[in-house]
């Protein structure tokens, strides 16, 4: 199942080689579109040549359809893809600045690379400028760092904003792009016909474009009709990948490891208690949250768990394995990374800590202090928690 972690699969050298090949494809695509020529790029802003808009949105649309079609068919796990974090206002301000740089300089960073590679001196000057500009930004950042870090939402999708399903959003994006292509074609024609004196009309004259649009709409409709897999269907698809960790009990942690982890200041621990309300009310671990299995199928509820920082650990506890395992499956396929189950729930929690004292004093069993660990032999439990440091949010811009 995609995505592949190519550096883990092939090692650093092999992985970097794949990045090089992807880059080569990227460079070829940009060059083929004519993006090595600043005049063509600038013409976009004078409405005479819409190549930039057409190529960019075709690229976005094709990739978008491929990603969500393979996700709908269970070939790709969307939760594992890096989605650019949203810093709304800094992004908008940065975008406006870039628009100015675009029209003054005639390139953007990627296209200036391609221009430089094809010996365009203006491309080289632009590229040198971007290096200087990146440096100036770092130097000036302290003056407005708070603003730069404001209006932040991790992994906030257009579909979340609209309140639509992903399928409906993909369909909407497709229609939006096609309308833009139509307008772009007509605007270009208008300027061309104005020069030659031909009569301009609203009609679509290029048949292949109509067929192309038909195919795109059909694919988008198919994505919408299939729908993105819910956690239950997703687990069926991904069972092979993760069930080993459950069978070998590699994700079941001993209460003492829980206590140790809970007392570690570098770890952000979240405990989800799946027991009935009345049991939770009678006794629960300090800081734990009472949830129902159904909550874990709710994307809104899951979002913060899937977006924990790399030092975030989620521990589940329930009355029996069948509930905690189901919860683990639901969360795992939705992209929660460091996910564990408290072995036996709270069944032997009290018997473990009931008669224990530290320096003759009793302690609150809902939050045993770290000193408790010294009351038990070192080999009481096997350490299971490994902090996965994989950071998916950053992508390649950082």
């Amino acid at each position, binding site marked *: 199942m995609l995505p592949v972690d190519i550096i883990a699969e092939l090692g650093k050298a092999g992985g970097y080689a794949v990045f090089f090949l992807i880059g080569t*494809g990227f460079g070829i695509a940009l060059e083929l579109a004519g993006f090595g020529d600043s005049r063509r790029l600038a013409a976009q802003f004078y409405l005479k040549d819409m190549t930039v808009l057409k190529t960019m949105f075709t690229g976005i649309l094709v990739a978008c359809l491929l990603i969500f079609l393979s996700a709908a068919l269970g070939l790709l796990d969307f939760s594992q893809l890096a989605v650019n974090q949203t810093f709304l206002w800094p992004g908008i301000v940065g975008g406006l600045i*870039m628009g100015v740089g675009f029209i003054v300089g005639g390139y953007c960073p990627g296209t200036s690379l391609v221009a430089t590679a*094809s010996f365009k001196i203006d491309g080289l000057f632009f590229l040198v400028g971007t290096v200087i500009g990146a440096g100036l930004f770092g130097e000036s950042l302290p003056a407005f760092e708070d603003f730069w870090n404001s209006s932040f939402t991790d992994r906030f999708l257009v579909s979340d904003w609209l309140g639509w399903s992903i399928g409906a959003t993909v369909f909407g994006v497709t229609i939006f792009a096609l309308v833009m292509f139509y307008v772009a074609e007509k605007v270009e024609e208008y300027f061309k016909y104005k020069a030659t004196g031909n009569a301009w009309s609203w009609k679509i004259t290029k048949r292949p474009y109509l067929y192309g649009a038909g195919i795109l709409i059909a694919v988008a409709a198919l994505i919408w009709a299939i729908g993105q897999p819910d956690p239950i269907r997703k687990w069926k698809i991904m069972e092979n990948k993760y069930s080993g960790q459950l069978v070998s009990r590699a994700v079941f942690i001993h209460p003492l490891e829980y206590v140790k982890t809970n007392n570690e200041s570098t770890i952000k621990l979240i405990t989800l208690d799946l027991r009935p309300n009345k049991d939770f009310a009678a006794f629960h671990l300090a800081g734990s949250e009472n949830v129902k299995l159904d909550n874990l199928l709710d994307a809104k509820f899951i979002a913060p768990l899937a977006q924990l920082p790399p030092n975030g650990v989620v521990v589940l506890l329930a009355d029996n394995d069948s509930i905690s395992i189901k919860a683990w499956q639901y969360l795992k396929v939705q992209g929660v990374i460091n996910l564990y189950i408290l072995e036996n729930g709270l069944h032997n929690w009290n018997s473990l800590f009931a008669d224990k004292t530290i320096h003759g004093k009793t302690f609150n069993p809902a939050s045993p202090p770290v000193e408790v660990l010294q009351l038990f032999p070192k080999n009481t439990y096997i350490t299971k928690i490994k902090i996965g440091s994989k950071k998916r949010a950053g992508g390649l*811009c950082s």
Partner: protein
Amino acid sequence: MKKIPKKVKNPYFAGTILGVVLFAAFALTHSGLGASGAISRIQVAITKLFWSAHVDRVGTFAAMGAGDRNALDHPSMFLLIGTFAGGLISAWYNGRLKIEIFKGPKITNYQRLFFALLGGIIMGYGARFARGCTSGQALSGGAVLSLGSWAFMFSVFLGGYAVAYFVRRLWAD
């Protein structure tokens, strides 16, 4: 033998190739494409050659190249080298490999190079501000429906259209 430059491809064709490459990038590396991150890394590496203490002091530089961290040891660098190679191969194959300066006919070469450098500085600054450039934010984020990337994309076009009239002499016939 001098090659005659071939016509550039239909934008929808080039865009489709771009989209397939972008999908491949997500499928094989779980992140999309990008250029500005690697450009920042080059900047940090150059700064470090001359003034390494400064790299440790400035927050965004330190994240890439503090201490004995090599700013250039990152997948994005290989993506950048690949982009360069792809541009070179395609330009050579299509007869567009030629030392030249692209500019509007009303300005001199020196003027064009000045504005290319200036535009680059503005672009480099903005790309760091927006945490990514046209490739990393607009293309990659757009394809995975990131709301911030879509807002960013429209603001790039808006910024360009807002200023285009005032700099029309740079590009006018």
